[in-house]
């Protein structure tokens, strides 16, 4: 077996996949569910319910607020308590719809049976129908970035899609939600992939999995052989060497089909690839075949000091505190709470933050693990340059940002940074490289936007 990986940079952080074999459990319903209106990239959703309205599980509560946007569906049945602000994953109070939970009554249109629906049995599901159902169900990228899925399936006229790559890499330490999903719902994921391929009008599909998940590779290879045998579609399971950040779109495209995506504004489809997370494939299956909008997701609740870390099928809007309590409560002492994993996750200061479309994990790090070391002067060892998966020079970008030399920073492709944190992880002097670069990237992107607006 020939094992690939991406060609530039990368690191290998400690895996700590504590919950690998923990079978997913259904998390209980919360007392009150909170739905932030901005759970995706793009314009915030617009509420279409009012205080006092009754909703069911799967009722649409907010409409897409623009082209790049997604509707939001209630994950619970009950009454709209109020439309207010609550702390979301940005760390700030943002507009939210808050629903008091009463019972568990689902919308009748949702097919709740376990029967596997195959694409060949549903000739009425045309490519256009697939895209429109995905759009109407509010499906967004489930890997964390939350980009509306239907937009990815309709590439700009300048680009032509050639294949769909399923991102089953899960290179981030601690998180196992995607792995559990693969082990428990492999058939549905493959139907989801077929729908994605049909929607994007391509016949080639890949599933990229890292070799630390041998059982998933085996299972999916077997199922693929069965499912796509004698069909027009050609799907390949591609085992990949362990390397962070392989789950980054551009890295995955390079690892799987050996093509490098040029600097922004180019996107993977410019080299012919549409990358979708396994979670997204599953959500697409449910949206198209079961008429079930996106209101549930697989989430890992993990941390070395948690009593019972586990994987949960969570209704969105559930406060993190509830999941932490299910795992034995917040450990004693100081902890660092992250929405996401330790590399890309977002640190939070409140446990009342709800699980959203992109919350793949709730990670709790101990003070010892999370504390940063005192930064030392840069000795120009260039380890960060070796580690950068985008081929940038992090030490230089960090310095340029610190000195506010935006012009030079732009010339050095600061906007290509994917903020994976490999540079900061690898720096022997513990310098806050990414902190600086992130600041610079935001400023430079602002400058570019205002320049474009002037033209």
């Amino acid at each position: 077996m020939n094992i690939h990986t991406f060609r530039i940079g990368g690191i290998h952080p400690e895996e700590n996949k504590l919950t690998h074999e923990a079978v997913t459990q259904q998390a209980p319903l919360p007392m009150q569910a909170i739905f932030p209106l901005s759970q995706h990239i793009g314009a915030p959703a617009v509420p279409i319910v009012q205080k006092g309205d009754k909703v069911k599980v799967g009722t649409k509560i907010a409409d897409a607020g623009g082209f790049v946007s997604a509707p939001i569906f209630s994950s619970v049945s009950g009454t709209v308590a109020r439309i207010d602000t609550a702390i979301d994953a940005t760390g700030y109070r943002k507009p939210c719809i808050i629903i008091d939970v009463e019972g568990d009554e689902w919308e009748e249109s949702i097919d709740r049976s376990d029967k596997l629906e195959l694409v060949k049995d549903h000739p009425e599901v045309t490519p256009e129908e697939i895209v429109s159902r995905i759009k109407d169900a509010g499906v967004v990228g489930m890997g964390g970035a939350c980009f509306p899925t239907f937009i990815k399936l309709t590439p700009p006229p300048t680009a032509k899609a050639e294949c769909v790559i399923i991102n089953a890499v899960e290179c981030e330490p601690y998180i196992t939600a995607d792995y559990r999903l693969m082990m428990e719902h492999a058939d549905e994921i493959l139907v989801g992939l077929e729908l994605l391929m049909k929607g994007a009008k391509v016949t080639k599909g890949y599933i990229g999995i890292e070799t630390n998940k041998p059982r998933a590779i085996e299972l999916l290879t077997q199922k693929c052989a069965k499912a796509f045998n004698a069909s027009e579609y050609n799907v390949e399971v591609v085992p990949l060497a362990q390397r962070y950040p392989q789950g980054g779109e551009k890295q995955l495209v390079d690892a799987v089909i050996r093509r490098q995506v040029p600097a922004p504004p180019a996107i993977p489809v410019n080299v012919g690839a549409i990358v979708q997370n396994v979670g997204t494939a599953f959500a697409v299956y449910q949206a198209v075949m079961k008429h079930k909008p996106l209101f549930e997701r697989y989430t890992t609740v993990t941390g070395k000091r948690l009593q019972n870390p586990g994987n949960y099928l969570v209704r969105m809007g559930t406060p993190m505190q509830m999941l932490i309590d299910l795992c034995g409560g917040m450990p004693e002492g100081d902890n660092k709470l992250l929405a996401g994993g330790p590399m890309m996750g977002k640190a939070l200061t409140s446990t009342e933050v709800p699980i959203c479309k992109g919350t793949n994990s709730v990670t709790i790090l101990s003070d010892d693990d999370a504390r940063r070391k005192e930064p030392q002067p840069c000795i120009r060892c260039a380890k960060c340059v070796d580690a950068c998966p985008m081929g940038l020079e992090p030490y230089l970008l960090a310095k340029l940002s610190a000195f506010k030399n935006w012009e030079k920073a732009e010339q050095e492709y600061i906007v290509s940074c994917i903020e994976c944190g490999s540079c900061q992880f690898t720096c022997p002097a513990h310098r806050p490289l990414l902190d600086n670069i992130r600041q610079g990237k935001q400023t430079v992107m602002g400058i570019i936007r205002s320049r474009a607006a002037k033209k």
Partner: protein
Amino acid sequence: MNFILIAVIVLGGIALIAALVLFVCSKRFAVYEDPRIAQVNELLPGANCGGCGFAGCGGMADALVKGADAGSLEGLNCPVGGSEVMSRVADLLGMAIASGEPKVAVVRCNGTCEVRPKIAEYAGMRSCAAMHACGAGETACGFGCLGCGDCVEACQFDAIHINPETGLAEVDEEKCTACGACTKACPRAIIELRKKGPKGRRVFVSCVNKDKGAVSMKACKVSCIGCGKCVKECQFEAITLGQNLSYIDPEKCRLCRKCVSVCPTHAIQAVNFPAPKPVEPKEEGKEATA
């Protein structure tokens, strides 16, 4: 003797030719610059702070002279030199003074460590902008001063500092030139340029928290809760309430300080007033029990 003569003639000749070339060039290719620009430039402080909106004092001098030719100095003000410099410039250009009232930077956050408890620890780069991008910061208030000193770094006049006891930015009124660099550096727009006021007396709402009262109170005891008491109390309609936050218009405020006494959270501050008269004992008792 002959050698010396030849040398003198040759060098003298070269010098003459060079002088001629230089003379012709300086006449032929001369760029006319208004002599007043240099004169005005001399009057300006020369700090090149950019507070006037131009890249430096040279640009400002240019604009002032152009303005004088156009007949108005409106909109042109050197915040560093203040009215003194502006009146001298106006004299030179034979114009009326167009300088505004002196202003000063005001930090609208009073959430000291005691009244605004820390709920988390930030370990990243020491920069307000970086901390602001990470979330609410170390306290539960998502609007207040972060105390990392981006404003201190931006100030060219050493006029703003972080007080280590309160963790807040404090302005040195003597040194502040109201150039506005700090207002741009603050990622939360806490610092405002306000009218300095007679003898530096000012009344302002020292809070920018737009959360609902109950939420902001929980985060910080001296936050504006948007109760509107000050709005009712003000006789001069100087106070407006929007997004759970009061704002005192410095143009309308008559410095009566009635709003200061009615504010339940002490979010309204009056500075540089003489020591307050002893408050009626009744009131004080109420406050202590509240």
